[in-house]
């Protein structure tokens, strides 16, 4: 599914990713943990193609296809989805309109038939229900006036609608209370599938109680420093990143 090799990336001339290598097989959920400033969000932005992030070396492939040379919308059409840490507000554009446009753009790019308004409404209502989102929320402007929990739920709704191959969740647990965390996690778990992989970026073990990862990686100073099974997250929770950070900086 996802193959990252020796990835180096800079922002404003400063190198953040320093030879990151990572492989996520089909259907697996991998967690990326690490201290502040290690490059976790940078990794998600570089994969999604955010302007300002410059790849200086290495490669990243999704199902064998090069990601890094493609425009962000092409990567989205290829099946990459980023659940934002800070979802963006788009005033005046309803969730419904936004999702219809996004889904149809992606379907068009994949050579699939576009959905009409009725099909879209039916699809959306079904997906929204799973996340406990009301019709009223579908009619509200994208993320405008949403609480932190609603924004994250909305990200997962978009993910459910767009049915990506690779989901990157960038600190989806930040700002969530325990109830919201449960709902969001259930939404994510419902999307686990043999042909869908996930990269879950988080600071805390807490999220991994709800979204059980197949592998856990420690990202420190721009590189994957350690990898292991779910038990690694528990160890990190107990001992902290101290050792990894020190090694990364050495």
């Amino acid at each position, binding site marked *: 599914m996802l193959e990252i090799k020796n990835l180096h990336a800079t922002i404003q001339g400063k190198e953040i990713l320093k030879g990151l290598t990572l492989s996520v097989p089909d259907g697996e959920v991998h967690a990326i943990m690490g201290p502040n400033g290690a490059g976790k969000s940078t990794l998600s932005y570089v994969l999604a193609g955010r302007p300002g992030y410059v790849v200086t070396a290495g490669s990243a492939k999704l199902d064998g296809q090069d990601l890094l040379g493609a*425009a962000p919308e092409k990567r*989205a059409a290829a099946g990459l989805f980023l659940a934002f840490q800070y979802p963006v507000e788009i005033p*005046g554009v309803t969730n419904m309109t936004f999702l219809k*446009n996004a889904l149809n753009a992606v379907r068009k790019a994949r050579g699939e038939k576009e959905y009409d308004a009725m099909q879209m409404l039916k699809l959306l209502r079904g997906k929204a229900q799973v996340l406990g989102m009301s019709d009223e929320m579908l009619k509200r402007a994208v993320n405008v006036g949403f609480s932190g929990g609603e924004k994250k739920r909305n990200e997962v709704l978009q993910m459910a609608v*767009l049915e990506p191959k690779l989901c990157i969740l960038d600190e989806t647990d930040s700002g969530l209370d325990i109830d919201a965390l449960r709902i969001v996690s259930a939404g994510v778990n419902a999307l686990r599938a043999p042909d869908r992989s996930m990269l879950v970026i988080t600071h805390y073990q807490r999220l991994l109680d709800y979204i059980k990862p197949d592998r856990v990686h420690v990202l420190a100073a721009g590189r994957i420093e350690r990898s292991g099974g779910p038990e690694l997250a528990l160890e990190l929770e107990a001992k902290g990143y101290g050792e990894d950070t020190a090694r990364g900086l050495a």
Partner: protein
Amino acid sequence: MTQAKALPQEALSSATYKHGFVTDIETELAPAGLSEETVKYISAKKDEPAWLLAWRLDAFARWKKMKEPKWAKLHYPPIDYQAPSYYAAPKVKAGLKSLNEVDPELLKTYDKLGIPLREQEMLSGVTPSVAVDAVFDSVSVATTYKKALEAHGIIFCSLTEALHTYPELVKKYLGSVVSAHDNYFAALNAAVFTDGSFVYIPKGVRCPMELSTYFRINTANTGQFERTLIVADDDSYVSYLEGCTAPKRDENQLHAAVVELVAMDRAEIKYATVQNWYPGDENGLGGIYNFVTKRGLCKGVASKISWTQVETGSAITWKYPSCVLQGDDSIGAFYSVAITSNYQQADTGTKMIHLGKNTRSTIVSKGISAGHAQNTYRGLVRVARTAKGARNKTQCDSLLIGNLCGAHTVPYIESRQPTARVEHEATTSKISEDQLFYCHQRGLDTEEAMALIVNGFCREVMKELPMEFAVEAQKLIGVSLEGSIG
């Protein structure tokens, strides 16, 4: 490498203007130039009554003494008023009686523009949604559903026809809201106007269809000077929409129209405009100079007039659709979206003149500027001493795309009534890089993302448009910004 699309910096490619074609049709053209003779020529062409010729000549005499207004934030070379021809009409067979006899070339033109000039057969109980008056250069070439509307006592026809069929009505109201001396361009229009639409809604009648006029400039070296007059009698309602397009040309063409609305007791007029005159090319060459005077008089108590405009075209727009709130408890509204890209310039807004007690007005203006364009909102709210309890709320939002364009807000507030409440809010923003990236990440390309974000920005105004036109207008907004994205 991964350096993805940067934010739009400047207009790179030309906007796609889909209505820029020319109809090849035999045209009767007045000699170029403007004089008393021109005024008499037009009046004779239309076989007008003596009072109207006198009115025109008086307006022309005044116009000659007036100076072109220079207070707007618009820059353009001097207009040579002697250069164009002031009358151009497609030659038609005499004795035209039915639509079947409209020149096929004209039918084809309107088909191409997406304007239906053939009446659909009326099924029992089903009323068609839109009736159209089609003005081509200086004349109205067809009006649909006239008969169906007559059954309700509604008059919908060209102003020329109204002058002959309903002379008293026209005489009573023509110039009653925008006088022949009102301003430079209104005086010019009064002198040389050639046609336009006339609407009268009788007492207590709710007009069952959208009425609309489609203005088309076709012939080179001409201008268009039309007048629209809408009178809504007591307790009546009408929703009206005008659209306009013109061929792509390197020369500028002048359009100076006048629209007058009169709403009697408890009457309501909704007037919408989708202005898509040729805007000029990406270097600012060509395009229509659009100098328009539009004013509505809320004459009766509790009458309502709303102006909704979507301005995407024209090289120059100078336009301030206004409401005179004379009747007590009358209501005026102005909803505007003005989009300028490339080298377009718009100076547009409204005037709300509160005269009656407890009169209310709402102004919502959305200006979008891209490329090298300049976009100005200019609005006056005046509360007279007589307007006890008057209220106004104004919201002006500007959106900038790129770093080379400008947005300006010039509000004038004059209140002589201590109980009046006048609110003004204004914002200026840019489409953020975050918003664009968010859209891109969801699969939308830059143009789709911009169209979506800009339509969201305009939503408050777009929802005021009649449903039949809202979808078209939304697409138009997307198209207008095509190419303004780096």
